[in-house]
């Protein structure tokens, strides 16, 4: 299986009154066919902006994609015309968002919103589109689909709205589904329903998925490969098993240590990451994580470590990754 999508040196900035926000800096990765890639990071890490940039959904101004290439289907998506990118968006690469209430149009019925894409991208007529819409709603597990097609978004619960969003995302058989924190606004039992649904659809439809989240737990059960972002950069990438058994970047270790685990013994104290996330306007030289890092050496303050392959499947941006890799306890809490 070859690379379906290749991102090279992506850079996105926001030009604001306070200054230039370096939201995404030098982000490169690839996505294989049928693969699920998890992108993990906290707010402001650049995880959402990096994927919105792929299909040019960054509001301009204030935002601007200032560098890089996004290769998909033999073309650089950052260079193609607006018309061409519209043909890709929603059709070949679909996206679902965190908040299903604000991303659905409240004055149109669910049916109108799903059939719009079908008529636009696939040239179906009204009747065909309606039939396909019913199929899609059934696929995502909405009971009584034919009748619910004429309902408005407010008549659905949060979990059901997210199912509608997924149905819309899948409507044109995309090769890539980008999911931006799709379960963050949902309750845990509903989150479990949605993740279960996505796993099932992945088997049936076979699309590649980019799943963005701040929750390392969600990614553990879903992704094949994980990218960890911090301060607008990728700091670590690994196969899911490798990452959780032995993180190489101190930030990844810090994230894993700062959440209590349901299956672990009742530990006295959590190990937080001290300090605050970096300021993306006034970016200091050196590693963005250095001010909060417990493994820091002098060099970290002055030189930013490059993201380099340390094995055939792993990349890490840390001067001290070998020390991390050699830790006796490997993963969690000494």
């Amino acid at each position, binding site marked *: 299986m070859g690379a379906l999508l290749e991102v090279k040196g992506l850079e996105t900035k926001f030009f604001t009154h306070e200054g230039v926000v370096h939201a995404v800096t030098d982000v490169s990765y690839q996505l294989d066919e049928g693969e699920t890639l998890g992108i993990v990071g906290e707010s402001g890490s650049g995880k959402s902006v990096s994927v919105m940039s792929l299909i040019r959904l960054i509001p301009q101004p204030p935002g601007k994609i200032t560098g890089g290439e996004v290769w998909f289907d033999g073309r650089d998506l950052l260079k193609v015309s607006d018309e061409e990118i519209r043909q890709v968006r929603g059709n070949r690469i679909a996206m679902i968002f965190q908040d299903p209430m604000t991303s659905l149009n409240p004055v149109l019925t669910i049916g109108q919103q799903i059939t719009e894409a079908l008529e636009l991208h696939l040239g179906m007529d009204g009747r065909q589109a309606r039939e396909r819409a019913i199929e899609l709603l059934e696929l995502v597990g909405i009971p009584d689909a034919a009748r619910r097609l004429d309902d408005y978004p407010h008549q659905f619960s949060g979990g059901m709205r997210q199912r509608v969003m997924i149905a819309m995302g899948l409507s044109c058989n995309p090769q890539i589904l980008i999911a931006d924190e799709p379960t963050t606004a949902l309750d*845990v039992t*509903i989150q*479990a329903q949605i993740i279960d649904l996505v796993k099932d659809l992945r088997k049936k439809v076979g699309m590649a998925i980019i799943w963005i989240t701040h929750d390392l737990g969600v990614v553990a059960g879903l992704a094949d490969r994980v990218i960890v972002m911090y301060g607008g950069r990728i700091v670590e990438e690994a196969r899911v098993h490798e990452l959780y058994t032995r993180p190489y970047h101190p930030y990844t270790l810090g994230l894993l240590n700062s959440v209590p685990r349901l299956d672990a013994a009742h530990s006295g104290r959590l190990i937080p990451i001290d300090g605050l996330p970096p300021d993306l306007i006034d970016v200091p030289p050196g590693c963005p994580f250095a001010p909060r890092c417990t493994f820091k050496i002098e060099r970290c303050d002055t030189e930013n470590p490059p993201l380099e392959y340390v094995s055939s499947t792993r990349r890490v941006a840390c001067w001290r990754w070998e020390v991390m890799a050699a830790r006796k306890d490997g993963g969690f809490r000494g």
Partner: protein
Amino acid sequence: MAENLLEVKDLKMYFPVTRGIVIQRKVADVKAVDGVSFTIKRGETLGLVGESGCGKSTTGRAILQLYRPTAGSVRFDGRELTTMKGEELRRQRRRMQMIFQDPYASLNPRMTVGSIIAEPLEIHKISSGKEKQERVQELLRLVGLNPYFAQRYPHEFSGGQRQRIGIARALAVNPDFIVCDEPISALDVSIQAQIVNLLQDLQQELKLTYLFIAHDLSMVRHISDRVAVMYLGKIVELTDYKSLYEEPKHPYTQALLSAVPIPDPAIEAKRQRIILQGDVPSPLNPPTGCRFHTRCPRVMDVCRQVEPEWKNVGTAEKEHWVACHLYD
């Protein structure tokens, strides 16, 4: 001194649904909290978990008399709060404080941090002048902030720092009891642990009693001594944190626990999830019998008709309360 600081008995909080603009007729009740009972011991943390709309925040507010309960009793340190009014209630309020979920909405953007923290000191006439200023600085230090920050405004701070300001304000009046209403839900993962550790340190240092309301089960397990699980206005299970997670009795608790993702791919691959069907029903018109019967994977005929009794299925020393017909 009694062992229990707080005793809640059969607490009900209904919100009327009205129709008509000029003449408002009551047409129904939203039964947000419908008969919950529990106690909190001195120095203990009771966790209250449940999904959105289950009534957990309303329970917290009704205890503090921010909403006047429809029925039931709330005894705080031996005194009944539901019938208390005016100055008498205000005196009790000095001893009970609240920390809110959203650190962006719960601090007045036009007040300096110093005046936000000093406000309860003024309202309760605790201190003034230089003494007040010193107390504000002491409180800022206590929650891990620079005393110099008193001059600044909330927008100059990050979410985690704002939550610390909210905690300092709650501590200003030297309370015994704090309702923590989802205090970490709006914060980033790496900051959550900082705030949880701070809350635990403060509890030890100041001998505080907490009601910790959250939807994050792993965090509730971490911080609580005992945990109560709420569903649609009722508590369905209550026991110590260990029993709840090791031997959950109620099918809803079991489903909730199995839905929480664990950050370990090897475990995730082997786990059998209980996926609940459907959504939480409306509290306007809750199901008859057991309220969970519409989604329960182990539903029986009796569950649809008869409301299950709230009873102790553990021992006298190790209580394990549950409301479920499986244990009749």
